[in-house]
């Protein structure tokens, strides 16, 4: 055979079917039940937050990709200017909703046209679903009743400052959705801690939520909150509506081999242990706030968590400890966001310190560095 089209690569020549895209798809499928249930509960408020967040995330990723690879730079800058300038101008004039709808529609159209162009060209798949996952996760940590520009700006921040500025997928140190949430909580604390659909109040006279009440020590029996927290919690972020559905989604991911058991179980387990030690209700702590969402979907993010089994256990325990410490002893009632971000920061150190034992080196001889 003088001329042929044989491809020569290094082995292996077969690969398992899982790709980055399929992994992201699984995460979205696992989040779907909880999300849909929440959308049903929150109506247009919830739907708009999720839509705006996801579309903005996709748009932002397209912009970064184009600018980084110098494809269609001019039209990308124009699109970016329009999508940021028009809402700014519109809000100054007081055009609110109309501007919002126009901007979001424009972003969706631009994203679609750019991805369609991309598919016709290269074989390399850039749009692997990771932006969609970030957008969805960010929407889930927002309260449902927020101005439209909260998910809009937050999603921009999540993708730009949480992921792209580090170098893109795989290079970020912190969980992008949580970075955005942290920045937004510092920027507009009122919107992010008060936009509940129907607050889950401690009792009829006070307006404190159960988590704040437990912090102030004004609440004794919390078991009456179990059912609503587990099944249908109207007083929380979009992702906190149904711990049951989140748990189901998390178990699905573990069974599908997408995430491993170490982080969720050690995270939640540590929370149980600590709450028992201080004499507070462990079940309540598991169900309240963002613990379920955080332990199952945020802390388990591949890029920002350790890669070895030992490392993951350390990570999970650390997250649990910090979450409980913040919930018990700090001014804020919620600790999941900061706990996960802090442990994200320690992940490179954990990975550097906890390496697997090399094959053929006995445990006794392991101390000898080569």
């Amino acid at each position, binding site marked *: 055979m003088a001329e042929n089209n044989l491809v020569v690569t290094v082995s292996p020549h077969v690969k398992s079917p899982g790709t980055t895209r399929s992994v992201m798809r699984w995460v979205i499928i696992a989040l779907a039940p909880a999300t849909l249930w929440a959308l049903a509960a929150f109506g247009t408020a919830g739907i708009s937050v999720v839509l705006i967040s996801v579309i903005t995330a996709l748009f932002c990723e397209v912009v970064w990709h184009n*600018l*980084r*690879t*110098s494809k269609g*730079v001019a039209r990308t800058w124009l699109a970016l200017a329009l999508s940021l300038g028009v809402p700014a101008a519109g*809000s*100054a004039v*007081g055009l609110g909703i109309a501007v919002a709808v126009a901007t979001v529609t424009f972003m969706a159209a631009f994203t679609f046209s750019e991805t369609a162009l991309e598919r016709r060209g290269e074989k390399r798949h850039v749009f692997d679903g990771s932006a969609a996952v970030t957008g969805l996760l960010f929407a889930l940590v927002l309260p449902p009743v927020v*101005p439209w520009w909260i998910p809009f*700006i937050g999603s921009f921040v999540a993708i730009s*400052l949480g992921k792209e500025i580090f170098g893109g997928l795989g290079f970020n140190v912190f969980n992008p959705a949580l970075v955005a949430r942290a*920045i*937004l909580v*510092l*920027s*507009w*604390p009122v919107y992010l801690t008060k936009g509940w659909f129907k607050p889950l109040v401690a009792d009829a006279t006070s307006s404190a939520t159960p988590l704040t009440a437990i912090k102030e020590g004004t609440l004794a029996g919390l078991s009456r909150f179990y059912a609503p927290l587990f099944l249908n919690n109207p007083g929380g972020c979009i992702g906190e509506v149904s711990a049951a559905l989140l748990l189901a989604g998390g178990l699905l991911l573990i069974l599908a081999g997408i995430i491993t058991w170490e982080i969720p179980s050690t995270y939640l387990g540590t929370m149980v242990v600590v709450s028992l030690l201080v004499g507070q209700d462990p079940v309540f702590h598991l169900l309240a706030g963002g613990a379920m969402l955080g332990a199952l979907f945020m802390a388990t993010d591949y890029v920002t968590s350790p890669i070895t089994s030992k490392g993951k256990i350390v990570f999970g325990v650390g997250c649990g400890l910090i979450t409980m410490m913040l919930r018990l002893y700090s001014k804020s009632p919620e600790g999941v966001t900061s706990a996960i971000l802090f442990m994200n920061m320690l992940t490179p150190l954990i990975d550097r310190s906890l390496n697997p034992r090399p094959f053929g080196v006995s445990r006794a001889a392991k101390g000898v560095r080569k």
Partner: protein
Amino acid sequence: MKAQMMDLTRGVVLENPLLRLMIGLCSALAVSVKVENALFMGIAVIFVLTLSNVVISLIRPVTPDNIRIPIFLVVVSAFVTIVDLVLKAYFPDIYARLGVWIPLIVVNCIILGRAEAFAYRNGLIASAMDGLGMGAGFTMVLVVMGAIRELLGTGSISVMGVTLVSLGSGFQAPTFMITFPGAFLTFGLVMGGLNKIQAVMAERAARRATPSMGKTASGGA
């Protein structure tokens, strides 16, 4: 003459103390909350830096090498005390807002750094130029950061009670910008911006130097 011009302009961009030498950051991050604070701090630093550079350069012949740092500190504190008393007397609210950062100018890495690295080894005019340039560069970055943080963090920029810019009452300011994390972020973005500008300028200079190479290989990141 050219060398002296270099001494003056070096500290503004090429060897900007905050963005390139990366010294004196702590006070910069804290003070850049408001343009007003930034301006006054900057002027204070220019004053202290220039004059202490001059004095340290002058007393070189009588400064024993092994105790030079305490001597620098004495010189610098003298000028900082002048600034402190002047601000306290004529601008009490600024003084109150800048608080502990005024006395901390004494140990600001820029002042001590330039004293050790330049004023102690160079002549009078050069040291004065260096002080002015570094101080100007410091002030410039501080004011830019202050403008960004104040505008975005409070919705308007006001100096000495006069509102210079305002984004309107409908603007919901992200208070993140006036916190310390916001300071770090702003600083990083400003540095990134400068890096990008310098990279583009270097690329253009390289392209002009070798026009026969045609299209350069670097098509972006």
